[in-house]
């Protein structure tokens, strides 16, 4: 329940609702967009970035948080570790979210032996948390070409056309596959897949399953993995390093068994990195919507093994992360709410941006309001703006919120905030890494036999990911990675080595970098700061 101060500010939201409903805010002109981003979007805060001093992308601009990890040593005593493989397999999949499980399923479908190792429990991932939905061009007025154009525009034309082409062309086939294994996408009365329009889309293209899209897909994928019993699963075993052969090709990984507290080596003919994104690095001190294990491990591991990265200075700050109550800070309020017409309202009771602009613009506009002193302050000193959700009940129909957003309704019911009556206080939350490890259309990185899929991969979304394209990309490139990796079965993997580490560390030492940070991070250091 809201404390008195916030209730007072809320009165203003309630009292201005009718007036706001009559208002329609114009979309921003090209120039205004540019100005808004450059002045307020965190990606443009130069002080938050520096240029990398080592590795394949030496000279590239990345966030300090990431640079700290890339310019550091690992906990692993690489000279002493036992490299005798405890497991050998054809395909080693690292990460048990949507991309990893899809890759494992498709690799196995070609008869490859598959081992999947993941940090926490299988399925514990960002994929489970995806609420809004998945893009795929199935609607009459839509087409893969439109999907292509929308994606390129959203990403500021920084996405790689061949990857975007793969994404949009595989889309409808992926939907078919998901339906075949029993994923229950919402349908309309005629049995068509229901499609919704979202910010920045030129046609209705979002498929969903209530407001629990990722969860319901992930449940089915996990269930599907059990069917053959041939995919071996190691839970609570995060990868802490990749291994390479004499020629520098990837041939396995070192895992850390969290239970037994020891390292173990796995040898494989191909490795698929699907460890997701980096939200838990809390760039620039932002809250995050990401799960506990999203610490950007893939980029660290692949980079040390020599892989190129792409666009790691571009992140998505989802405009609507929760700011009150404290224990929910960073939790996402789905974009579907804005797509339907909810208003963003500042402390003066005014709307300040067309809510259907792309995420980067809306996020920048909210930051502008807060920096300009038009934000609303919580008792613990956090500042946000209001998201007027109750207006939807008036705009559309009474009772629709509970029906269409049951998970959101329940999340707030737990803290006694009734979203049908009360707006939510929100602020941008670190949501997605737009860049990642550079891949080709087969999902292979620039290191031989090292494949990457999902949020860890880069080059698809350019500098801004459109809503719903991530859920699609994890299946499209998860599948491609799985199939291509399984084809590497012929080759016998050479002995596993950590020679790439020796080389990388020599570089660090020659630059007199002696950082104390250890990477990968694996788990965020949590400071409970409410005392």
């Amino acid at each position, binding site marked *: 329940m809201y404390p008195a101060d916030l209730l007072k500010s809320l009165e203003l939201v309630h009292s201005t609702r009718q007036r706001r409903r009559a208002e329609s805010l114009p979309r921003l002109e090209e120039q205004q967009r540019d100005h808004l981003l450059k002045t307020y979007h965190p990606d443009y805060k130069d002080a938050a970035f520096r240029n990398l001093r080592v590795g394949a992308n030496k000279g590239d601009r990345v966030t300090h948080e990431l640079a700290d990890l890339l310019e550091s040593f690992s906990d692993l005593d690489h000279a002493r570790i036992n490299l005798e493989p405890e497991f050998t397999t054809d395909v080693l999949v690292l990460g048990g979210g949507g991309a990893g499980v899809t890759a494992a399923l498709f690799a196995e479908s070609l008869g490859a032996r598959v081992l999947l190792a993941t940090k926490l429990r299988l399925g514990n991932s960002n994929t*489970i948390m995806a609420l809004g939905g998945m893009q795929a061009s199935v609607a009459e007025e839509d087409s893969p070409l439109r999907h292509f154009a929308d994606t*390129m525009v959203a990403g500021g034309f920084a996405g790689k056309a061949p990857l975007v082409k793969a994404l949009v062309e595989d889309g409808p086939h992926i939907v078919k596959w998901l339906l075949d294994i*029993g994923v229950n996408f919402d349908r309309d009365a005629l049995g068509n897949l229901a*499609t919704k329009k979202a910010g920045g889309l030129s046609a209705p293209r979002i498929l969903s399953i209530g407001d629990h899209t990722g969860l319901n897909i992930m449940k*089915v994928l996990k269930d599907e993995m059990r069917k053959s019993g041939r995919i071996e699963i190691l839970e609570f075993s995060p990868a802490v390093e990749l291994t390479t052969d004499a020629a520098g090709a990837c041939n396995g990984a070192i895992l850390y068994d969290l239970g037994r507290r020891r390292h173990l080596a796995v040898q494989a003919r191909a490795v698929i990195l699907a460890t997701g994104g980096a939200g838990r690095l809390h760039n620039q001190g932002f809250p995050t919507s990401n799960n506990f294990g999203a610490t950007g491990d893939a980029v660290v591991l692949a980079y040390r093994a020599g892989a190129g990265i792409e666009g790691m200075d571009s992140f998505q700050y989802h405009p609507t992360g929760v700011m009150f109550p404290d224990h929910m800070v960073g939790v996402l309020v789905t974009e579907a709410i804005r797509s339907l017409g909810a208003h963003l309202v500042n402390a003066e009771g005014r709307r300040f941006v067309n809510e259907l602009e792309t995420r980067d613009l809306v996020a920048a506009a909210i930051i502008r309001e807060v920096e300009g002193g038009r934000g609303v302050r919580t008792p613990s000193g956090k500042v946000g703006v209001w998201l007027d959700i109750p207006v939807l009940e008036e705009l559309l129909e009474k009772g629709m919120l509970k029906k269409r957003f049951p998970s959101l309704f*329940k999340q707030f019911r737990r803290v006694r905030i009734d979203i049908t009556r009360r707006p939510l206080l929100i602020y941008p939350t670190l949501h997605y890494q737009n860049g990642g490890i550079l891949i080709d259309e087969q999902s292979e990185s620039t290191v031989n036999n090292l494949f990457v899929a999902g949020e860890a991969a880069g080059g698809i979304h350019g500098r801004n990911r459109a809503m719903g394209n991530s859920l699609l990309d994890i299946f499209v490139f998860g599948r491609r990675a799985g199939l291509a990796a399984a084809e590497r079965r012929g080759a016998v993997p050479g002995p596993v080595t950590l020679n790439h580490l020796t080389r990388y560390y020599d570089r660090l030492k020659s630059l007199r970098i002696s950082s104390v940070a250890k990477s990968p991070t694996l788990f965020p250091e949590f400071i409970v700061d409410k005392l």
Partner: protein
Amino acid sequence: MLTIELEGRKIKVPEGLTVIEALWDTGHDVKRGIGCLSGLCGACTVAYLEAGAQRVRFGLGCQTVVAEGMNVIMLPYFPSRMARYDMERMTNPLQELAGHYPELTACNDCKACNICPEWIDVAGFVKTAKEGGYESTADRVMDCHMCGLCASRCPKSIAPQYVGLYIQRSCARQRPLPPNLAKRLEQMAALPADREFTQVAALNRAGLEAYCRKILDS
């Protein structure tokens, strides 16, 4: 500061923390029961007794805020039996439900399973499933995040979450292919492989921009 009993130990913690934050605050190195930290994934189930209360309650550790005098523990993952099957090979999986989950018929509607942190009426959907109301069951289990709390309580060893998932998948599988998807797949198959797109993918940035704007304006 509040005094609570956490994992069997009396301890002082600051006000306003969730159970998970209280565990961190007191130096517990918890990883197993942590996932989304948003009340979405079901990894962090806890059991707690509030001061003066009679009944143990269940909830999510990342969303349950500690209160004075609360006695709380994190629950370990509960093992429950799941059937193994290949959905893609079955044309009518609903007919095979009883073969995979025979214990479903043993449900006596005792309602012991109604402790769902998602407020799902578990006993209700199990009953509906037993009576053959599959579509309605599938609808009602959509928010289940598989925490397994309900299964931990069932005297008949029914795992409602897995029965529900089986039914959810079966219903989806048995629906006809959506006409709009079928049409799109047909259209795509009819196009000559790689036509226009090959040229598009080779365009330079200015070319790409012009091309995309053209499509979006059409």
